[in-house]
C-alpha cells in the first residue's frame, strides 16, 4: 500500500533501501520500505533481530543515507537537511546514549546545552522530567550506577529535555524488566497526550504491538505490513484454539499437534497448548490421541504474534523434521524415567566485593525436567548458571550437580554437562563443520565417535546444507542451532542454556523449544535462563529471580494461580512477575 504523504504525516519513508558493504559482500539491511506515520500517534516498528529496525531508525535520524528512496521527517527532507531534522527530533539509541561517568544532573545539563534549552526554562523542565521518571532522588548519582530500568528512563528524559515533535526510540525496552517497560510506555503516551508528540518506537517484543496505535511489521529488511494492531489480529479470529489432553503431557501434546496438517503454530501456554489453524476451522486432530483418548478444544483470542507467524509461514504446515527428531528421541527416553534430583542447590551465594550478585538461592532439579530461571537483566541468573557449571567459584552454599559436589570435583561434573553461553560463543571465522570438529575434539571424542556425533549434529539440527558456510554469516537462528549442537557433542546429561533465545526471531524460538522438548523427553535435564515471560510456560518448573534472590518457585500454573483475582481472571506470566517484583520492592522499602 502506498504511504500516506499528506502534510499531517510526521515521518514518511518512500521506497527506501539501504545496503551495507562488508568484506566484499553487500548486505541489504532494508529493502524498498514504505512507511507513513501520522502525527500525534505512537507507531511501533516491530520485528525480530536483523529485521532492519535499527537501520530504519538511523535513516530517520539522518545518521545513514539511503541508497534508494526518500525520507521526510516533519516535512523536512532528511537526506538534504539532516541537521534541520536533528534539531527537531528526539532520538534515543539502543544503549540510551548516556555518559555513565556523569551524574544524572550532568547528563541532563549536557543535553539541555546541546538542545539549546534556555537556562531560565530549565528548573521547571527538569522538575517535570524527574517527577515523571521518578529519578528525582537520584540526581547526584552517576548514570553508571543506575539500574537498567533507571538508565532507560534517564535516557528518555535526556531525549525529552527539549520536547521534540518527533520522538525516535530504538529498542527502548530491550533487556529492561517488565515493570520499567510498563512505566516507559506510560511516559511515552503522556508525551503524546500532553505535547502532541509523534513517536516511532522499535521493539523485538511482539507482545508490545498491542500497546501501539499503529504497527509496522518488519522481517528481514522488508515491511510485512502496516496497520492498527487489531487489523493484524482480526483476520486471525476463529483460527486460534486451546487444546488439552489429560492423557498426554503438554510437551508431547505440543509435538504431536505441530505435526498435524493445517496447524501452522502450536505453543505451550500454561497447561494447555495453543494452536493456530491455517483456515478458520479447527483442523482434524483425531490423530493426536491414541485409542480415542479425551481431547478438549476451546476457541482462543488471537494475539499479534499469531498474525506474525501466519504471515511468515503462509498456509504451509510446520516442518515435520523436528517432530521426527522428537519421536525418535522419545523412544530412546523410555529407559530414563527415574525421578531423582540431578541438581541440588542450597543457600548459594556469590559476592563480588561488597555486592551480592546471588544471595541465598536454593532449588533442586529432577532428571528430565525443563527448569527455568526467570528474571530481568542483573537478577543474578547468569551468575547462578556459571556457578552451577563450575565456571565461577561459589562464595558460600552447597552445589551438587549430577551427584558431584562442585566445590571439589569440577572437572568430573563438567564432563557430564553441556553449556551454551549467552551470545553462543562460536568461532565466527570457522565454518559450521570446523566448529563442530573443534568442539568434538575439545570434549575428547575419539575419531569414530566424533565423526558419528558430527553427522548426528548436522542432521538433527538441519545444518547439512550449511556445513561449509562461515559461522559469522549464519542467521541468528542458525547460530543458535550450531551452538546447541556444539554443547550436545558429548551427549551430556544436563544442558545449561543461558539466554538462548535472546534476539532470535519467533520462528527460530519455536524450533528451539521443540528441540528442547525432544531432549527433555530423552531424559536430558535442561536448565534455561530467559527474560521472555512467555517462555516460562515451556518450563516444567521455574524460579523467579530479582536482585540475586529467589522470589518464587514452582510450576508456571502455580505462579499464575497465585495472582488470579477479580481484576485478572486469567493472569499471564508477566502479570505474575510484575506483582512479585512490586511486592519485593515494597518489602525492601518497608525494611529500609
Amino acid at each position, binding site marked *: 500500500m502506498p504511504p500516506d504523504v499528506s502534510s499531517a504525516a510526521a515521518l514518511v519513508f518512500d521506497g527506501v533501501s539501504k545496503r*551495507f558493504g562488508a568484506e566484499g559482500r553487500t548486505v541489504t539491511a532494508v529493502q524498498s520500505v514504505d512507511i507513513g506515520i501520522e502525527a500525534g500517534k505512537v507507531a511501533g516498528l516491530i520485528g525480530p533481530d536483523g529485521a532492519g529496525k535499527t537501520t530504519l531508525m*538511523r535513516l530517520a*535520524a*539522518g*545518521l*545513514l*543515507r539511503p541508497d534508494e528512496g526518500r525520507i521526510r521527517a516533519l516535512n523536512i527532507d532528511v537526506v538534504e537537511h*539532516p*541537521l534541520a531534522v*536533528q*534539531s527537531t*527530533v*528526539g*532520538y*534515543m*539509541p*539502543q*544503549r*540510551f*546514549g*548516556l*555518559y*555513565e*561517568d*556523569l551524574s544524572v544532573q*550532568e547528563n541532563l*545539563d*549536557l*543535553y*539541555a*546545552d*546541546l*538542545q*539549546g534549552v*534556555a537556562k531560565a526554562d530549565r528548573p521547571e523542565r527538569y522538575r517535570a522530567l524527574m517527577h515523571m521518571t521518578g529519578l528525582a532522588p537520584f540526581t547526584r548519582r*552517576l548514570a553508571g550506577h543506575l539500574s537498567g530500568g533507571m538508565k532507560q528512563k534517564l*535516557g528518555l528524559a*535526556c531525549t525529552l529535555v527539549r520536547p521534540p515533535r518527533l520522538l*525516535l526510540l530504538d529498542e527502548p525496552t530491550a533487556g529492561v524488566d517488565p515493570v520499567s517497560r510498563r512505566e516507559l510506555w506510560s511516559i511515552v503516551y503522556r508525551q503524546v497526550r500532553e505535547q502532541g508528540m509523534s513517536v516511532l518506537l522499535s521493539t523485538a517484543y511482539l507482545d508490545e504491538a498491542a500497546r501501539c496505535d499503529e504497527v509496522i511489521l518488519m522481517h528481514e529488511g522488508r515491511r510485512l505490513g502496516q496497520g492498527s494492531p487489531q487489523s493484524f489480529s482480526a483476520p486471525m479470529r476463529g483460527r486460534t484454539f486451546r487444546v488439552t489432553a489429560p492423557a498426554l503431557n503438554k510437551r508431547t501434546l505440543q509435538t504431536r499437534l505441530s505435526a498435524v496438517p493445517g496447524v501452522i503454530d502450536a505453543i505451550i501456554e500454561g497447561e494447555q497448548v495453543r494452536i493456530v489453524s491455517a483456515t478458520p476451522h479447527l483442523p482434524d486432530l483425531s490423530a493426536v490421541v491414541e485409542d480415542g483418548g479425551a481431547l478438549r478444544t476451546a476457541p482462543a483470542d488471537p494475539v499479534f504474534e499469531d498474525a506474525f507467524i501466519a504471515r511468515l509461514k503462509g498456509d504451509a504446515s510446520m516442518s515435520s523434521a523436528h517432530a521426527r527428531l522428537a519421536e525418535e528421541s522419545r523412544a530412546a527416553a523410555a529407559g530414563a524415567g527415574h525421578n531423582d534430583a540431578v541438581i541440588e542447590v542450597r543457600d548459594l551465594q556469590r559476592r563480588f566485593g561488597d555486592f551480592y550478585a546471588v544471595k541465598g538461592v536454593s532449588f533442586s532439579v529432577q532428571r528430565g525436567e525443563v527448569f527455568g530461571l526467570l528474571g530481568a537483566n542483573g537478577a543474578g541468573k547468569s551468575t547462578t548458571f556459571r556457578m552451577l557449571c563450575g565456571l565461577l567459584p561459589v562464595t558460600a552454599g552447597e552445589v551438587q550437580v549430577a551427584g558431584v559436589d562442585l566445590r571439589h570435583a569440577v572437572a568430573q561434573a563438567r564432563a557430564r554437562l553441556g553449556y551454551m553461553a549467552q551470545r553462543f560463543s562460536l568461532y565466527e571465522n570457522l565454518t559450521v563443520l570446523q566448529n563442530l570438529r573443534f568442539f568434538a575434539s575439545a570434549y575428547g571424542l575419539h575419531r569414530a565417535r566424533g565423526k558419528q556425533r558430527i553427522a548426528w549434529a548436522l542432521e538433527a539440527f538441519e545444518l547439512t546444507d550449511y556445513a561449509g558456510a562461515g559461522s559469522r554469516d549464519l542467521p541468528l537462528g542458525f547460530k543458535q542451532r550450531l551452538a546447541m549442537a556444539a554443547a550436545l557433542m558429548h551427549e551430556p546429561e544436563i544442558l545449561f542454556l543461558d539466554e538462548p533465545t535472546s534476539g532470535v526471531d519467533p520462528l527460530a524460538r519455536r524450533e528451539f523449544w521443540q528441540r528442547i522438548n525432544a531432549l527433555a523427553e530423552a531424559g536430558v535435564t535442561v536448565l534455561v535462563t530467559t527474560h521472555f515471560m512467555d517462555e516460562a510456560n515451556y518450563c516444567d518448573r521455574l524460579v523467579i529471580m530479582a536482585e540475586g534472590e529467589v522470589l518464587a518457585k514452582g510450576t508456571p500454573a502455580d505462579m499464575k494461580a497465585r495472582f488470579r483475582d477479580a481484576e485478572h481472571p486469567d493472569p499471564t506470566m508477566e502479570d505474575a512477575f510484575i506483582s512479585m517484583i512490586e511486592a519485593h520492592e515494597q518489602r525492601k522499602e518497608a525494611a529500609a
Partner: protein
Amino acid sequence: MKAGAAARMRLGGMIRKESLQILRDPSSIAIAFVMPLVLLLLFGYGVSLDAKHIPLAMVLEEPDADTASLIGAFRRSSWFDARGFDSIQAAQQAFDRREVFGIVWLRNDFSQRLLTRGEAPIGVIVNGVDANQARITQGYIQGVWQVWLNSYASSKGVELTQPVALEPRIWFNAAVRSTAFLVPGLIAVIMTLIGAMLTSLVVAREWERGTMEALMVTPVRIGEMVVGKLVPYFVLGMGGMLLSVAMALWLFDVPLRGSFWLLTATSALFMLVALGMGLLISVFARNQFVAGQLSILITFLPAFILSGFIFEIGAMPAPIQVLTHIIPARYFVAILQTLFLAGNIWPIVLANSAALAVMMVLFLGLARRNMHKRLDA
C-alpha cells in the same frame, strides 16, 4: 535564542562534559600525569647512556712508580673502578667471570718503553658484547691514558712524539650527562602520548558506548564537537608538559637556556599536531583496542625511536633518515633540545616550527574533512 548564543551554549556543554569525564576517569589522569612521572623518573635515573664506574682490570706485570701513577689516574677517574692484577691470566679469569668489563695490560717493560720510545706500551681488551658500552669504555681508557701521558711527559720534561695534542672540549652539555639531553626529548614523547593516544581513545570510547550516536542526533555541529574535545585535552597536555619541564629543571638540573615563553608557544603548536593525529586516528578506529594499537604504532613508537630523542638521526641509515621527516616529534625534539641546551637559536626554532605548523594544518584538516554526522561515511 540567537544562533551565536546557542552555539556557545553547545560548545560550553561539550567542554564541560569532557572536562568532567577527565576528572572522573582515573585512566586519563594516569596517562596525563602518572605516565610522564614514570617515564621521566625512568629516563632520568634508570636509563643513562653514560658509562660510569666501569669495572676495569689493570694488569701490572712489574709494579713501579710509573705504573702506580697510571693506575692512580684510572682510580681517580669517576668512569672506572680499577682493580690491580699481577698477571694477564688472573685478569682474564676475572673477565670471564664478568667481574671486569675491560683489561688494561701493562707489560713488564712498561717503564722502559715509556722512557725510550715514548709510545703507548699498553694493551687494551674490552668486552665487545655491548658494542655501545665497549666503544665508550675504549674512548674513556684512551682519554685517561692521553691525559696521564701528557702530564707524565711534562713532568719529565720530555717532548711527546705525537703530532697533535688532543684537548677535548664539550659544548652545550659540558658534564656529558645524557639526562640533560634525554629529558627534554622525553617531553615530546609524553605530549604525543597525551595528545594522540588519549584523544583517540576517548573518541573511540564514545563510539563503543553508543554515546556518539546520541550526540549526532542533536543540533551540535561537527566543528563544535571537535573543538569541545580539543580544548580539555589541550589543557591536559599542556599540564603534562609543564610537569615535565618542572621536573627537568628542578629534579634533573637540566638547564633551560632559551626562553620559557618560546618553549610554551612551540609546545602548544606541537600539542595541536598531536591532537590532530589523535582525531585522525579516531576517524578510522571506532573501538578503543584498535585506537590504542594504532596510536602506539603510528605516533608513540616513531616519536620514541625515530625522533632523535634517544637515537641520533644523523647516525641512522639514509632511508630511515628520510623517513624521520614525516615524524612530527622529530621537529619538536630538535626545538626542545635547542631551547634547553643551547638557547633561542631562531633559525632552528623557526624552521622546525614551520614544519610543525604544516603538519598541524594537515592533520586537523584531514580529521575535520573525514568527520561526518553520519554512521555510514
